[in-house]
């Protein structure tokens, strides 16, 4: 069995054959490795959300095939495999708190498992297990989701997806609209899950610092086409290109390239730093080398 997600010549057109026709994805050929933490970046409207909705067959390609391990998603639809695919791939949509509907938090989280055949009792047990994973306290289980704060509601919605125990977790801008601390906590939570549960994570984001921190694979999408795919190191090396398409750089990388532009000797960086820790290490190591060199003279 071939593992991983593969897009083969995928096109997607909204409302074909109408004046509203909109060709959103164009000849997408790209791979998302199994068990990777893949970040998808690109401007608003570039087609990121459309792309990820192919992963559980909510959208089906107008042309081409998306393979999720050995599940094919084609223009013919997903037919009988649909349910299994939906369970395998959990998608957390943008602003997922707007999908809450049950009277209590636990019932809402149990909705997914019940749809996939769990009994009421099993599903509620699963809800109680999942809640701490998203950083919420057990007493919340019996509360109405509509009495919670925005951040808590989002965590409940994420718990609702995690409760399906997906192998692939897709996150569409999960931290949009949260405060800086909430954002950091949520990203740490996903990374923790990634390490603990050996998931494949697909993260759509505008935060280059998150890409630098957590991802080990990056896909850049521009106007419905794949502009780049590779490791974060490979992507952020292209400083000029990233500035040209206005995607921005991680803070540390930006700092380092600015230092270099101001005359800081480039040799001091053995690798372009992506995180603040790496930046500090590189600068310190550069000074060490310089000190040794000066002493030798």
């Amino acid at each position, binding site marked *: 069995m071939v593992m991983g997600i593969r897009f083969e010549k995928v096109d997607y057109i909204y409302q074909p054959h109408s004046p509203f026709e909109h060709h959103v994805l164009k000849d997408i050929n790209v791979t998302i490795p199994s068990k990777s933490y893949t970040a998808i970046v690109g401007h608003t409207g570039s087609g990121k959300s459309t792309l990820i909705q192919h992963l559980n067959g*909510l959208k089906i390609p107008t042309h081409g095939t998306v393979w999720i391990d050995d599940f094919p998603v084609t223009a013919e639809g997903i037919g009988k495999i649909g349910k299994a695919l939906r369970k395998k791939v959990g998608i957390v949509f943008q602003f997922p708190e*707007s*999908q809450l509907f049950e009277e209590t938090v636990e019932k809402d989280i149990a*909705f997914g498992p019940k*749809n996939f055949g769990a009994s009421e009792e099993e599903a509620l047990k699963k809800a109680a297990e999942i809640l701490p994973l998203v950083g919420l306290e057990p007493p919340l289980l019996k509360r109405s989701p*509509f009495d919670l704060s925005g951040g808590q509601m989002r965590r409940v919605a994420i718990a609702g997806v995690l409760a*399906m125990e997906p192998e692939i977790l897709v996150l569409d801008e999960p931290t949009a609209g949260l405060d800086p601390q909430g954002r950091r906590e949520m990203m740490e939570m996903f990374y923790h899950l990634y390490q603990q549960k050996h998931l494949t994570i697909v993260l759509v984001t505008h935060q280059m610092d998150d890409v630098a921190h957590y991802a080990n694979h990056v896909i850049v999408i521009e106007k419905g086409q794949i502009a780049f795919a590779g490791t974060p190191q490979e992507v952020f090396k292209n400083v000029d290109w990233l500035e040209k398409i206005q995607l921005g750089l991680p803070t540390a990388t930006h700092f380092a390239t600015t230092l270099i532009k101001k005359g800081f000797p480039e040799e001091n960086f053995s690798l372009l730093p992506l995180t603040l820790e790496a930046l500090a290490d590189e600068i310190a190591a550069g000074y060490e080398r310089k000190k040794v060199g000066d002493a030798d003279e």
Partner: protein
Amino acid sequence: MNNKLVIGQYLPLDSFIHRLDPRTKLLGAFAFVGIIFFADSWQSYALLSLFVLLGMMISSVPIRYFLRGIRPLLFLILFTTCLQLLFAPGQTILFKIGFIKVTEEGLIQAAFIFIRFLLIIFMSTLLTLTTMPLAIADGLESLMRPLAKIKVPVHEIALILSIALRFVPTLMEEADKIKDAQMARGATFGEGKLKDQMKAIVPLLIPLFINAIDRAEELATAMTARGYKDGQGRTKYREISYGRNDLYVLLAFIGLTGAVLWLS
């Protein structure tokens, strides 16, 4: 946007009909529905059909948009037509199977009813395909203005109508999103027994209502913050005005009315 719903869907093209004043199109469509009930001869139906077809051609909207408008009403049309065919009183019996008899008069009546349905649907589809919903609301407000004299809250009605129309696409988009999100959690819509189908809608309707109420509150706050009070002395952001073409179209409708009355 949802692509299944054609009635009420505006097609942003540029044509003679698109450019007409919304009031002209509203009056025309209403008048047409009135006129068609006076038609009772082949000649008058031929004339009315010709008139509608001409309008459809000038609008440069592809024909399939009009055909799609029929689909949701197809059952009703066929049912009514069949009733006419079988039960209309008549003398000249064409054929008879058991107690069912089809008369020439019945056949003609059924054909008339069928054409009448089609023409009314085409005409109203022509109105909504070529006129922005907000323009329709503005047009209605302007046409109803005389009613303000007898204390009908015309401005408020128009405001409610425009807000409702403004939020139809937003709500449809939202419904699509919530539906996707619930389907991603394994929900199925439109499958199984009727009772199951009704139950499946709950996870869609509740979030939709909650979002709509939140949105209404935000809108009310925003309107209050900008000093909205009532319709007294307000000027319009979108002005509508009659042109020469509107006059021609109104004359054409008057001519049509005369011709249909004369032919019948």
